[in-house]
């Protein structure tokens, strides 16, 4: 794009028309306005790439017009024109966001070069806008992954819309696999920080020492193995959103440290003396009942109240069974496309089975099930036979299981729901990792797809 839509604003007709005539010869589309208010009226109906405004105008002067344009049309470039002897107004204009200024009278070459510069700047801005739109689109796809027409989900969507534009910390609660991270991404994508970083960390997946280092970063030599300085996630989230998943796993000491960071918006890296500041919006998630943990003294109340300004509860899948057909179809579309298979949908019997199942692993488990079904399905519809690996009572008929069978079944399901993360599964089952690993070995439990 080398030609512009330009608006010239000057109360002096001769100046206006003369500049317009010049720019027209450059092949640009030019409109004129005799005053600031007239310019704003024009801008309300037409898009302009560049506004060239004289600083000295009666009523609304060029600087006030500049400030209005920057507020209402942030992507429009503005060049102010001012007379020699009033360079201060040019400097002020630059500080207010003008792209450039011209001191009249100016050389014709200066004018042509300036417009060329604006054209190239505008090209960059447009590229940037397009890029951001693509990013936003891909981020809001996260919202589309939160599929649901049920009342509980509609409430969640409405809450996300309300909460997102604020800076309030959000605590997302819900069982494992309900989409807590998706919700946090959806909030981020709809916030004023959408173009900033989204930094996630799973507090349950690491030891306290590792978590501290991941969050706060460290200086070189802070501990054995710290061969170079490293930025922590708190720093990386500056101007963006920090998502603390499984915040219920954080130790009381870590809660104190984080509380201080939230209050002061600054911290030291491990082994560092320099104060690092970071301005982030906090979203936390947990499957635990933090309120109960606070009452039992297992979670700090001051930290709890700090992170729980807004609460979003994600319903488990069994509380929104009416969403299963919709969700399953949505997941099927994605999985089939990825697998390069043409699969039209589910048979009514298959849907019945899906809807009857309890889904302890929630949406994540459903996604796994659909993924497996897509792989093993022979025809163009997912039928009962493709869901045989699912062990709901509805598929096999009610059966009385021995304790051992129930244990195997339950462990298998929890492992699937946790994507075979033994540490997490152990926590859910209330046993330690080592014990769980022994049971897996004893019962010969094997992750699907592995020998």
């Amino acid at each position, binding site marked *: 794009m080398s030609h512009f839509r330009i608006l010239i604003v000057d109360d002096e007709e*001769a*100046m206006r028309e003369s500049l317009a005539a010049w720019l027209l010869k450059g092949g640009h589309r030019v409109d004129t306005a005799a005053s600031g208010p007239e310019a704003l009226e024009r801008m309300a109906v037409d898009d302009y790439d560049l506004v060239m405004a004289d600083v000295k105008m009666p009523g609304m002067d060029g600087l006030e017009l500049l400030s209005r344009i920057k507020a209402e049309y942030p992507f429009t470039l503005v060049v102010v*024109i001012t007379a020699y002897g009033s360079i201060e107004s040019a400097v002020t204009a630059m500080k207010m966001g003008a792209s450039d200024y011209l001191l009249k009278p100016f*050389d014709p070459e200066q004018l042509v070069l300036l417009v060329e510069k604006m054209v190239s700047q505008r090209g960059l801005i447009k590229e940037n806008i397009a890029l951001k739109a693509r990013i936003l689109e891909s981020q809001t796809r996260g919202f589309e992954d939160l599929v649901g027409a049920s009342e509980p989900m509609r409430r969640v969507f409405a809450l996300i819309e309300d909460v997102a534009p604020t800076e309030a910390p959000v605590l997302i609660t819900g069982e494992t696999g309900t989409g807590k991270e998706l919700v946090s991404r959806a909030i981020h994508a709809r916030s004023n920080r959408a173009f900033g970083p989204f930094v996630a960390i799973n507090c349950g997946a690491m030891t306290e020492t590792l978590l501290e280092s991941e969050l706060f970063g460290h200086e070189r030599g802070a501990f054995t193995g710290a061969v170079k300085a490293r930025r922590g996630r708190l720093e990386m989230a500056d101007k963006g959103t920090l998502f603390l998943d499984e915040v219920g796993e954080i130790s009381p000491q870590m809660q104190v440290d984080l509380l201080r960071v939230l209050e002061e918006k600054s911290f030291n890296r491990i082994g560092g003396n320099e104060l690092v500041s970071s301005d982030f919006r906090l979203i936390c998630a947990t499957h635990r009942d933090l309120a109960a943990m606070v009452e039992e003294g297992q979670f700090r109340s001051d930290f709890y109240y700090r992170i729980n300004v807004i609460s979003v509860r994600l319903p488990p899948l069994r509380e929104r069974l009416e969403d299963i057909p919709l969700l399953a179809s949505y997941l099927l579309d994605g999985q089939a496309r990825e697998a390069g298979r043409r699969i039209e949908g589910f048979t009514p019997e298959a849907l019945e089975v899906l809807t009857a199942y309890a889904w302890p692993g929630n949406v994540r488990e459903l996604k796994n099930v659909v993924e497996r079904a897509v792989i093993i399905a022979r025809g163009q519809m997912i039928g009962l036979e493709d869901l045989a690996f699912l062990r709901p009572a509805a598929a096999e008929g009610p059966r009385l299981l021995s304790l051992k069978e129930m244990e195997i079944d339950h462990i298998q399901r929890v492992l699937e729901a946790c994507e075979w993360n033994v540490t997490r599964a152990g926590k859910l089952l209330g046993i330690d990792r080592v014990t769980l690993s022994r049971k897996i070995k004893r019962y010969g439990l094997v992750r699907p797809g592995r020998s």
Partner: protein
Amino acid sequence: MTAQPPAGSAGGEVHEAGPAGPALIRVVPLGQIDQVAVAVVAANLQALLDLTAEIAPAQPLPEQARLKARDQYDASLIIKALRSDSTGPERPPPLVIGLIPSDLCLPLLTYVLGEAELGGRAAVVSLFRLAGPGPDQTPRHLVYERLVKVALHETGHLLGLTHCRVPVCLMNFSPSASRLDELSLELCPVCRRLARRGRARLRA
């Protein structure tokens, strides 16, 4: 490139140069202008833009356009005056271009080499800066060549052409005498086509 002025041209008559047919552009000397320069411009307008040209009698410098403080003439005011000029025995040509020895400017611009309305009727060109800076006398032929280029460029605007990005095209923007020397005396193929269209509109 150079041409002799037609015989008897000092008598205040309008002279046509070139092929028969009504003149499409009138060349108007303003003030004391070298008559050879005037003839050269007329001849090249004809040869290179296919615009039958006539040379008007010299007119005085338009004092109403003079900006005393800047010692320059406001090109837009000269164009206004030229636009409304209808001297001559018959209907004036659709286009008119004035040649002026003095420095030209616009209120907003420090100087211009020439000025024209896009798709309009009138243009004006100055010889003032075509001799270039420095004490050495620029060869006459070079001054004429630069003058022709500016005149053709401004006339291009009258035919509706805007600035062209092709570096050597006559319609490429040139702010200085030295930059003018880099231009060819030709329009690029696209501008040539557009000029033909502009001319056809004049003849219609």
